[in-house]
């Protein structure tokens, strides 16, 4: 029994890892295709049919490029930087419920790597540790421009983590739990007691703040000051080349996938869809849950598209605008949201 669970979880974690990598890989193609579409171009279309093999070609190119090391004594830290960035982007997936449960051969398989009591805090812990990847990489590059970019990127991430945490507190107060699985389960169905069950309809302000902060946390436009080749020199990865550079960029796409998943799970009903209970009763648990997984991935893909849509629509902020927005707008708004949510909870109880 014990080893069966270990094997089951192992297979599940491997599958999640593979899917995350696959999604991150094809996000790069999707980004270029969407950019081309928004700018009335064709986009990559040479590798495979409609450019379907483009990510493989890009990966091969990155692997085949020359591995260049800057003159630094900190070779170990130089390699550690992208490694931390990548692994922290992947680690969050441990607490994400990808579906409710499946029944395979009499066993109930819970579609989540681990269901810990403090899952929300775990997500924030991993997020805050992710900053090290940028800081260590920027410092070990032995280049003052890299260091300055690393400072810029990490102060942005730290600032927006505060607003993000405050935005999520309102949600936690209302749901009364820190377990992501339970938050997902509470949004079951679509309509209950005269109102939508999905959190986005219950906590629109919290969702909005969380969304803006997610953009900042994943270093996406309009908050992509961490890296802009044109007006600020490269970024914290100026000195990186070959696959180490690829790891930084790839980690960003993996983080985008994971943060889309978190957005979908916390606010957009996770694996729930209208008629989930009906499907469980009439079509069985397995069919209903496979549909649920598909529903979750549709939501995730929508958010990935939304990230890209915004990137090719809105210009990037200036650094002081970014800090003003974070500290003077989002944090007071999030605190006001907590107070309002608290009042509503007290009054309706």
């Amino acid at each position, binding site marked *: 029994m014990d080893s069966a669970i270990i094997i089951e979880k192992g297979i599940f974690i491997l599958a999640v890892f593979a899917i995350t990598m696959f999604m991150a890989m094809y996000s790069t193609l999707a980004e270029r295709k969407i950019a081309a579409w928004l700018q009335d171009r064709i986009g990559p279309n040479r590798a495979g049919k409609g450019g379907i093999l483009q990510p493989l070609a890009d990966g091969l190119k990155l692997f085949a490029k020359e591995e260049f090391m800057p003159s630094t004594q900190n070779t170990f*830290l130089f390699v550690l930087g992208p490694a931390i960035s990548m692994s922290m982007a992947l680690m969050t997936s441990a607490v994400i419920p990808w579906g409710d449960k499946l029944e395979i051969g009499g066993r109930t398989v819970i579609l989540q790597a681990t269901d*810990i*009591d*403090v899952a929300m*805090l*775990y997500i*924030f*812990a991993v*997020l*805050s*540790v992710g*900053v*090290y990847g940028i*800081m*260590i990489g920027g*410092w070990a590059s032995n280049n003052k421009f890299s*260091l300055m970019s*690393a*400072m810029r990127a*990490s*102060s942005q991430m*730290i600032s927006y983590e505060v607003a993000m945490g405050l935005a999520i507190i309102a949600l936690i107060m209302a749901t009364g739990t*820190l377990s992501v699985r339970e938050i997902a389960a509470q949004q079951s169905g679509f309509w209950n007691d005269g109102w939508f069950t999905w959190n986005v309809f219950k906590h629109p302000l919290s969702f909005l703040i969380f969304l803006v902060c997610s953009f900042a946390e994943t270093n996406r436009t309009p908050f992509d000051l961490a890296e802009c080749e044109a007006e600020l020199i490269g970024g914290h990865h100026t000195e990186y080349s070959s696959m180490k550079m690829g790891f930084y960029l790839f980690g960003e796409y993996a983080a985008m996938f994971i943060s889309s998943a978190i957005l979908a799970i916390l606010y957009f009903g996770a694996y729930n869809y209208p008629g989930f209970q009906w499907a469980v009763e009439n079509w069985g648990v397995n069919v209903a849950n496979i549909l649920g997984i598909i529903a979750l991935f549709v939501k995730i893909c929508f958010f990935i598209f939304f990230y890209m849509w915004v990137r090719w629509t809105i210009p990037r902020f200036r650094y002081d605008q970014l800090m003003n927005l974070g500290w003077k707008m989002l944090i007071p708004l999030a605190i006001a949201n907590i107070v309002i949510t608290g009042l509503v909870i007290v009054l309706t109880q």
Partner: protein
Amino acid sequence: MGEIIFYALAAVTLGTALLTIFSRNPIHSALSLVVCFFSIAGHYLLLNAQFLAIVHIIVYSGAIMILMLFTIMLMNLNKDDESHKPIAAKIAATIAFCLVGLVLLAGLLRTKPVVESYYYSGEDFQSIKVLGKVLLNEYMVPFEFASVLLLVAMIGAVLISKKDKEKSLK
């Protein structure tokens, strides 16, 4: 299994703690301190204190050490910048440390641990619900005092940084 993990974690904790002190490069010592904090969080996890472990990581590794790294990186400290302390200070530090060690040893050797039998109260002390209720009912006053203390420290920091600005303008 648990014992092996404990010894491995203890070795990492002690090793990185020593590295923190002995590293010549301030960044390296700060980073070993981060690893040390992580292994301490691992000890908490071994004791089944999930909440404490995660909060420890968020607060110490995620916030305090990052700010510390910021400061060190911005000041750009190197081996050459290390201040050479006079020999008298070194001797004084050694004597003070030995005295503290003596007091601790003497105190700890004389203690007689009272081992009582555990009883099962039926409450899940890992769960945040229990922890929150205890914190905000039984320990309400110390909890609020701690938050006031933090607030005062925050306002003080803002005040100090403001004063500097006015001076530099003059």
